[in-house]
């Protein structure tokens, strides 16, 4: 197998070509095998090396056009995709719903068809509706789609960068205890992370208000969870108990509007029961990693001292996000036609 497009070091080229599953789209993690996740991790490692150079530029995607199509606000995801594309020499065009024809009522599908007609290679889409990337993948013929977060459904690139971060720090995920705290019900990050972590052999324990847990996620009858990740996710509303012996603690963003919608009696009570604090973290394994997908509400789901303390790998997550997105952009955009 050889790549007609080369990165400027043979090691990277080799790493990228080895055992790589070729996929047209990244819509969810649920169709990634463990092997494919390993492949992405290996590619991301090579990409991270590029990011450490003085001149962060390789010609891997020269002549390719990537559009970031964001229907929701975003700082880190959009910028990291843009940076990832630019480091790989792709031309990256950023488009957000405001200021575009969406404001004139253009449908998602017609926007997608318009972008396709311009000869764009890859669309990175974020959308408030679950499944929006699937609509584009189903209706567009030539464009590759990467899901940068859709509704409550999935945020596969976030999960992959989280896996990367844990692997990088702890050497692997097999047998590790990962506690995810907070609003799982409304979190696409949690959905993808649960999937990815469990797939890689970690034990996932959820904690938070029962009103913010998807009830059927925990049911023994959930054949989807059973058959794909082979184990059940656990839930313990008592964070002090859940956090015992954890290797990783991830706090999820708590949107303040959840209180108005009746999911919570008050933020005060949430903070008392589920804020990740120094005291609670002391129950975890020494050296446990603290993660957060961002943006953080410091002082609500996570205390300031934890967010910026020695266990926090929150900034690592951001750095690794660029590397992982470079790997995915490369795989998807070069595509099968580039390989023989």
């Amino acid at each position, binding site marked *: 197998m050889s790549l007609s497009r080369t990165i400027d070091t043979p090691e990277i080229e080799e790493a990228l070509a080895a055992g790589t599953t070729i996929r047209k789209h990244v819509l969810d993690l649920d169709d990634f095998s463990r092997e494919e996740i390993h492949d992405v991790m290996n590619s991301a490692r090579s990409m991270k090396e590029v990011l450490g150079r003085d001149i962060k530029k390789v010609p891997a995607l020269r002549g390719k056009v990537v559009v970031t199509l964001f229907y929701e606000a975003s700082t880190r995801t959009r910028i990291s995709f843009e940076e990832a594309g630019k480091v790989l020499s792709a031309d990256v065009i950023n488009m957000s719903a405001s200021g575009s024809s969406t404001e004139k009522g253009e449908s998602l599908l017609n926007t997608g068809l318009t972008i396709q007609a311009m000869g764009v290679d890859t669309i990175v889409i974020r959308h408030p509706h*679950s499944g929006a990337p699937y609509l584009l993948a189903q209706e567009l013929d030539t464009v590759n789609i990467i899901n940068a977060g859709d*509704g409550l*459904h999935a945020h596969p690139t976030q999960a992959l960068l989280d896996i990367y971060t844990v692997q990088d720090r702890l050497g692997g995920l097999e047998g590790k205890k990962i506690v995810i705290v907070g609003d799982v019900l409304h979190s696409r990050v949690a959905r993808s992370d649960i999937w990815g972590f469990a797939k890689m052999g970690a034990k996932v324990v959820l904690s938070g208000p029962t009103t913010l847990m998807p009830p*059927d996620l925990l049911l023994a009858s959930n*054949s*989807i969870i059973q058959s*794909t990740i082979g184990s059940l996710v656990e839930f313990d509303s008592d964070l002090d108990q859940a956090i015992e012996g954890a290797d990783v603690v991830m706090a999820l963003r708590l949107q303040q509007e959840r209180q108005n919608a009746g999911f919570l009696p008050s933020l005060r009570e949430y903070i008392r029961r589920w804020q990740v604090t120094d005291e609670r973290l002391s129950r975890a394994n020494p050296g446990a990693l603290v993660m957060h997908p961002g943006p953080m509400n410091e002082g609500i789901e996570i205390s300031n001292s934890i967010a910026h303390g020695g266990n926090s790998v929150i900034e690592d997550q951001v750095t690794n996000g660029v590397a992982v997105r470079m790997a995915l952009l490369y795989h998807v955009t070069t595509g099968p036609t580039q390989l023989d």
Partner: protein
Amino acid sequence: METESLVIRQARIIDPSRDLDQVGDILIGNGEILATGSLGSDSIPDGTRVIDGTGLVVAPGFIDLHCHLREPGFEYKETIAAGSRAGAKGGFTTLCAMPNTDPPIDNAAVVEFIQQKARQDSKVRILPIGCVTKGRKGYELSEMEELASAGVACFSDDGDPVFDANLMKLALTYSSDLGLAISNHCQDKSLSCNGVMAEGPVATHLGLDGIPAAAEEAMIARDIALAESTGGRLHVAHLSTAGSVPLVREAKDRGLSVTAEVCPHHLTVTDQWVLGGKGASASVAGSLAYDTSTKVYPPLRSLNDVEALIKGLADGVIDCIATDHAPHDLTSKQVTYQDAAFGISVLETALGSLMQLVHESKLSMVALVDRLTLGPAKILGESYKELATLQPGTTADIVIFDPEHEWTVDTSQFESKGKNTPLDGTKLKGRVVATIVGGTIVYDGPGLQFQAEKGRA
């Protein structure tokens, strides 16, 4: 009206109104059924056209208590003309049209418009359903007596529930001397919230807001209590959860005037279909996931619900099958799942999909025919029973179908303007061969074979 003479020879005649299931002949003339049984040649008038009924079933024409014909107001989704052709193709001879039109059917003028349109455009009988509340807004009762006099089949605000419990109580009370049922779309919207599919593992996996079964069951329980206190006639539209079945069973056991219908898709399709694999036990969302043709209210539910509904239908707790035919234009479905319109185009696939239950021995053929004919006719009232029998001397509304005919659903061949069905491309076994309304063949499908006319051979 002068109609031709027809005889169907050697068909399996199923007439639940007379507990009849036998092979024989059926003679039609002057728009009526003239005779059934083994008819000798001398009892057939000269010039009678002969249909070879070998291997076919002849039954009273199907009656659909619940469909959306969209006219007036939404002619880009469906018209009375197209909807009636779709009905005829599906074996339906009577369609009850839900009043969520624009304007809604909340006064006699709109009823008369639909009746006029039906006379002009429709091949089958169209019975408008009147709104329970003015403008279908849920605040004030419609002029129910005026609607009843104009000829509505029953009352419903379908598409929306009669949400206010006191108003539902008043509607049941006020209409109790009109002899017509109130068909309620039972959905407690404070529980269904922004839900777009059934609550459950598939919804969680896809990140779609779930609709809990309790949203339906809570309102059915409420309405049963109101039916009991008022003595009104309650009909539960599109019952869809396992938990709703015992509620209706218990109400009937207590002798209340409560009836219920179930839709073909809730008997044959599960929420797994939203994953895009046409119900294959997929554990991952394939690239075809979020198939908006599966978005319907009530939502497609679990296998457990489907099995309970089939059992409830077989037991007779659920009185009838109604299609909830809800055609939509392509644009309303070519959007995200959240934005997509609720509804499935059902009329043309109903029999084929329901025959699966018969082929799998979950429902007898006689019960299936009963739930499509006599079951709905009883809910409409005494005078409609004539449309659900093959008794000589009654109106010749008849369906002829081939229970073994295998075919592949191709929405491009639909008569309905709504091509929105998850069954597109699937194989069904069982297909309508001909539909006869008032003695006239209004649909003549594949497999209809005429022999030489009697006396002109």
